[in-house]
């Protein structure tokens, strides 16, 4: 899921200080799980804005905030509230914010969160980055552990000289990705393969921004 984090409230107020009446949109998917865009957070922000002398015309938790058409349909019943607001606050990720920007061309739309990464939830509201969406997955060759993401240098052919008693040179809190890969390949009895495969330089054209993907058309092909 997409991991998001609330912006510092004072910083948010600096951004939106010039507006007076807000409509808030959360998201029931990632942002709810991150504690940044569910019902409780909408309530909390509503109160905080009121305490600053602002008004809030309404708010709701979108089913999937980055789904443009679905969100558009859901927003129909909030037409009056949205019309009366002079600013829409999006309490999900950067994609959710830009869905609203697409829907409200003439209205101010501001994010309340910083979007961080694609993450795994390991415990309640604890997230780790394991995949950075590089566009061409290579973890079939590395025992299912991603060195592109979990090695700070993204090394593809083994550990650097900085590996320290199994930990990463960048932080003693991270285990060296290549030690993990080695251990897993050993458990799977695939060490021979690890020794023999040199992974080629990544094709970063596969990650050229902005990306799009039309699954429907691909299916037709």
């Amino acid at each position, binding site marked *: 899921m997409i991991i998001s984090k609330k912006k510092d409230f004072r910083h948010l107020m600096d951004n939106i200080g010039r507006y007076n009446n807000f409509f808030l949109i959360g998201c029931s998917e990632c942002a709810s799980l991150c504690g940044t865009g569910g019902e409780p957070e909408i309530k909390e922000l509503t109160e905080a804005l009121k305490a600053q002398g602002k008004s809030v015309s309404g708010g709701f938790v979108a089913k999937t905030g980055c789904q443009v058409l679905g969100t558009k349909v859901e927003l129909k019943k909030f037409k009056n509230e949205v019309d009366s607001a002079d600013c829409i606050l999006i309490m999900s990720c950067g994609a959710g914010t830009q869905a609203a920007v697409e829907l409200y061309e003439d209205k101010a739309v501001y994010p309340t969160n910083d979007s961080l990464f694609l993450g795994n939830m390991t415990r309640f509201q604890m997230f780790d980055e394991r995949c950075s969406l590089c566009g061409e997955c290579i973890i079939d060759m590395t025992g299912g552990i991603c060195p592109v993401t979990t090695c700070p*240098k993204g090394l593809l052919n083994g550990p650097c000289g900085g590996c320290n008693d199994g930990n990463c040179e960048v932080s003693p809190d991270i285990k060296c990705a290549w030690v993990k*890969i080695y251990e897993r390949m050993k458990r799977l009895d695939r060490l021979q393969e690890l020794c023999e495969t040199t992974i080629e*330089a990544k094709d970063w054209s596969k990650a050229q921004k902005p990306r799009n993907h039309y699954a429907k058309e691909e299916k037709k092909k």
Partner: protein
Amino acid sequence: MSFRDILNSGKFVVTAEVGPQKGTDIKEMHHHMELLKGKLDAVNVTDNQSAVMRICSLAVCKIAMEHGLEPILQMTCRDRNRIALQSDLLGASVLGIKNVLCMTGDHVTAGDHKSAKPVYDIESVQLLKAVDGLNNGRDMSGNEMKGPTDFLQGAVVTPEANPIEPQLIKFGKKVKAGAKFFQTQAIYDIDKFKEFMRHARKFPVKVLAGFVVLKSAGMANFLNNNVPGIRVPQSLIDELKAAGKEKALETGMDITARHIRQLKEEKICDGVHIMAIGMEDKVPVIMGKAGLL
């Protein structure tokens, strides 16, 4: 004789390193190069070592050549993408630089520009392959070039890495990718190094053992606690302690010289690489003590 020829001749090879500095006043560097001239088989020029911004390796290699030293261009993948790396390699080639040491490079978090974007478009194994390609007249995209390079490409290895197995796997990949020589991380335990060499000897490559002179017991403890892949045995720390503050550096140099002698006499490896780290003037002293002059 070129570094390549000396390596292949079977002579016990000696290299040392010059660390470019931050800033343009290079009087001291000239002085160090004059001191090293005629004594070494080649001199490594480090590439923004420890991710600290300094004069580029390429320029200092050129200056080393003007002093009559044969440079080994150190190249890390931290600061340049594949276009810049290959372009610098072609530049090095036309300037007459013949040797390149391919490394991954310390992460920017280790250095003095911590907010820089680390590149790592490719890494050491892939850089070795790229050099091999350039030597054969093709760039990384397979384009034919007007004139190939003729580099002797080397790499680094950490014989005391913990765990050692992944490091050895990478060593094998580097050999396969075209590495002709290796310079190791600093070693202090010759018996352990012999173990590593038993493995390395299975490959058709030359190995130069790395040395960093211990200036004091405190430095030895610091290395043990802070530098990955370096293990100074307690016996050496005790030796430095016993020598007392005044004699510690002298003792550190004696230890290095003693180890170098042993490697050479027992033909354990093909040569040594002395990393002076700011004490370039001591390199000839160590060489003298080791009987290399």
